[in-house]
């Protein structure tokens, strides 16, 4: 039995008025674009091009590596300047193998044959086609969409859930997307309904954003598709969390360690759906995305349609440059965003927002005090955990207790940090502790598997031994009978 709506959670100031004032506009072109090969979940992509090759806008430049991986396309026409390790934002600035494309600013499109109308393709073919468009989850997980669809395809009674509930403060890229490209989202929804052979699709959006809601309802009405409906959810952080949204909209809970497909649901970000639409309808692969540039540290706060690989410094310059009160550059929102060491880092598929945060935007943490077990954190935890107990057992490194208290169910949303009077960085502690617990669990699993294989092998050797003895005994019997 699921809990109605988000259990706990926080009512936060969205800080998106400034960034949604101006309409969407493309970012001004830049000299060179840096494309990390491992900017999606799973294995890194393998380059198809060599330094010096001439590439067109939208031409595939890297194919998926083994297992879960994604295609990569050139975001501009020009020449491949180099394939070398370059600092990347998702590695906290550490270098990772990247393709550098020198932009010749002629923007010549790669004329791939436009794919046939999606209705004629079988769901399986449609899923593969989506994969070739380099489409990955743009909500922040950057999980290859084709793989996610394939994983859920065999579930029965599938329901599609489009996540437009942008609950994290400062981020407004989905908001602007829904206002200006609602039609893309509805078209993408119909493509995905066909790709999953699903019958119902719910677009979930927070109830404090009227314009996107209006745009979407108009687009749905225009499409005359009664399978798609709009659903408003309460504006509580983290309503937009995949697990929380599924519980709010469908009233079921994703089982621990399981996937939404286990409750016959597929949850996709509206940005991903728009990317699917652009690829299937206009044969334009995922080469650019909408990025919110906001925070009191940048002069003009707005949303830009940015080609992948654009350096963040160029984006800030495009929005009028720093305002001098700049203190911290964050990729993502103020609750789960990643603080970046410098701004010479490329925009990647996961960059939904860049906050040029000034001391006004940040609330400095006070000195850390011991936990007084007040329970404020367990009251706001959307995963219904007891962060004060998790913190206690993390300090004591008691892996068994951490497992029973559900450390692996923590979605690292930071609500517990927010309300903690002792100012303890709980989310970070749990994030650091998870690998240790996972390591123990995999070690135990490997030991059990090794024991099973050892027992099977001993049984096999015994069986072979017995058969050989039996055969020997029979032969000896025949010999004695004959003689």
């Amino acid at each position, binding site marked *: 039995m699921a809990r109605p709506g988000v259990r706990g959670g926080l009512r*936060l100031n969205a800080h998106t008025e400034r960034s949604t004032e101006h309409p969407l506009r493309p970012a001004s072109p830049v000299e060179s674009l840096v494309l990390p090969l491992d900017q999606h979940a799973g294995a890194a992509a393998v380059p198809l091009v060599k330094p010096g090759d001439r590439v067109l806008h939208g031409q595939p430049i890297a194919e998926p590596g083994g297992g879960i991986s994604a295609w990569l396309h050139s975001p501009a026409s020009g020449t491949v300047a180099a394939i070398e390790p370059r600092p990347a934002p998702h590695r906290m600035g550490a270098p990772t193998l990247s393709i550098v494309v020198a932009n010749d600013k002629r923007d010549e499109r790669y004329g791939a044959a436009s794919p046939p109308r999606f209705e004629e393709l079988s769901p399986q073919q449609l899923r593969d086609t989506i994969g070739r468009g380099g489409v990955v989850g743009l909500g922040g997980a950057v999980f290859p969409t084709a793989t996610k669809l394939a994983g859920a395809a065999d579930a029965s009674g599938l329901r599609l859930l489009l996540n437009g509930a942008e609950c994290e403060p400062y981020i407004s890229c989905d908001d602007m997307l829904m206002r200006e490209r609602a039609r893309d989202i509805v078209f993408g929804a119909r493509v995905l309904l066909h790709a999953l052979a699903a019958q119902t699709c719910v677009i979930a959006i927070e109830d404090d954003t009227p314009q996107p809601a209006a745009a979407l309802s108009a687009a749905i009405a225009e499409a005359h598709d009664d399978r798609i409906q709009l659903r408003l959810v309460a504006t509580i952080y983290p309503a937009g969390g995949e*697990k929380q949204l599924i519980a709010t909209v469908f009233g079921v*809970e*994703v*089982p*621990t*360690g399981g996937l939404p497909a286990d409750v016959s649901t597929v949850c996709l970000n509206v940005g991903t759906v728009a990317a699917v639409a652009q690829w299937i309808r206009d044969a334009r692969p995922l080469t650019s995305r909408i990025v919110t540039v906001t925070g009191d540290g940048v002069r003009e706060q707005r949303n830009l349609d940015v080609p992948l690989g654009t350096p963040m410094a160029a984006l800030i310059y495009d929005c009028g440059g*720093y305002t001098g009160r*700049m*203190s*911290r*550059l*964050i990729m*993502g929102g*103020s*609750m*789960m*965003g990643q*603080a*970046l*060491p*410098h*701004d010479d880092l490329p925009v990647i598929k996961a960059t939904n927002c860049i*906050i040029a*945060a000034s001391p006004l*935007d*940040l*609330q400095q*943490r006070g*000195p850390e*005090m*011991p*936990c*007084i*077990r*007040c*329970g*404020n954190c*367990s*009251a706001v935890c959307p*995963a*219904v*955990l*007891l962060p004060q*107990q998790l913190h206690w057992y993390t300090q004591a490194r008691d892996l068994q207790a951490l497992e*029973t*208290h*559900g450390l692996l*169910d923590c979605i*690292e949303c*930071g609500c517990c*940090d*927010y*309300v*903690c*009077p*002792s*100012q303890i960085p709980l*989310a*970070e502690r749990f994030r650091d502790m998870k690998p240790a617990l996972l390591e123990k669990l995999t070690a135990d699993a490997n030991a059990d598997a090794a024991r099973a294989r050892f027992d099977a092998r001993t049984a096999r050797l015994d069986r072979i031994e017995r058969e050989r003895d039996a055969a020997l005994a029979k032969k000896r019997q025949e010999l004695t009978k004959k003689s």
Partner: protein
Amino acid sequence: MPFATAPAPHVVAPSSVARVMRQVLYALVPTVVLHGVFFGPGLLIQIVLGVATALLCEAAALRLRGKPLPPFLLDGSAIITAVLLALCLPPLAPWWLVVSGVAFAILVAKHLFGGLGANPFNPAMVGYAVLLVSFPARLLQWLPPDVPGMQPTDLSAMETLTTILTGSPPARFTWDAITSPTPLDALRTDLALGMTMGEAHARALFSTFGGKGWEWINLATLAGGIWLLALKIIRWHIPVAMLGALFVCGSVMSAADPGAYAGPLFHLTSGASLLGAFFIATDPVSAATSDRGRLIYGAGIGVLTYVIRTWGGYPDGVAFAVLIMNLAVPLIDRYTIPRIYGHAR
């Protein structure tokens, strides 16, 4: 351009342990003021003595444990322990009573068990229990409330100070002349003597539903408690469970035998019930930590308080009830883990 990095989340609510403890102290002010009105400045002196000892012991313990002084000393937790302990002691108790109680509470009950956040037992109650068991006579020397119809003990502020510091009343009084039992204590002795509730209640000490003077102090405590609830410093589970349990026990027993058992309202507004429910039992460090756990914890304190008050040897059982339930907290926490999202059970 390089920037400093910090872990997510980058925005936290402006809260601190000191702020939480300060709010609890503000909520205690009405009780202390009314206590002063009815029983004279004795309590204020006790509080000053207690807080001084608390800060001294806290500083010494922090130094010994090699902890930095600034954030810990002024976080207010030691001060709250001292104030709560002083509130439980008679106003004219000798100075060494509150000093030794607070010292034991801070040094042994708090720092020996791991300092702020780790002490399983409520320090104030440990201190009070030590005093109650070691000096039972001293803790029964309460004063009659300064209300019309009761002959008040007119001790000036200076005389109160000398009484506390020297441990004996000024020449013109003897101890039993100026002291009088608390309503709870009076009721216990009367019932033990075989008087029925009706007769016992007729004594001058009692008014409509609690002891004269005491009922106003307890109402002030209730107001302070509701202020804490409104500010979400404490959660409703423990007070409601404790007062609920007390009310249920009181009404059941008094319904069974009205002559021999006090009514539920009397239990709620007398002794340390309200102070215990809103300020002592809700000490987050020594209480259970999940909502269901807090309900069990509160109810346990309520029932034990009633049992000790009615059949036990001491007039007010809140201290012992809290300590016994503190002992059970790790067991309660182990079996009241809420159902995690996505878990079957």
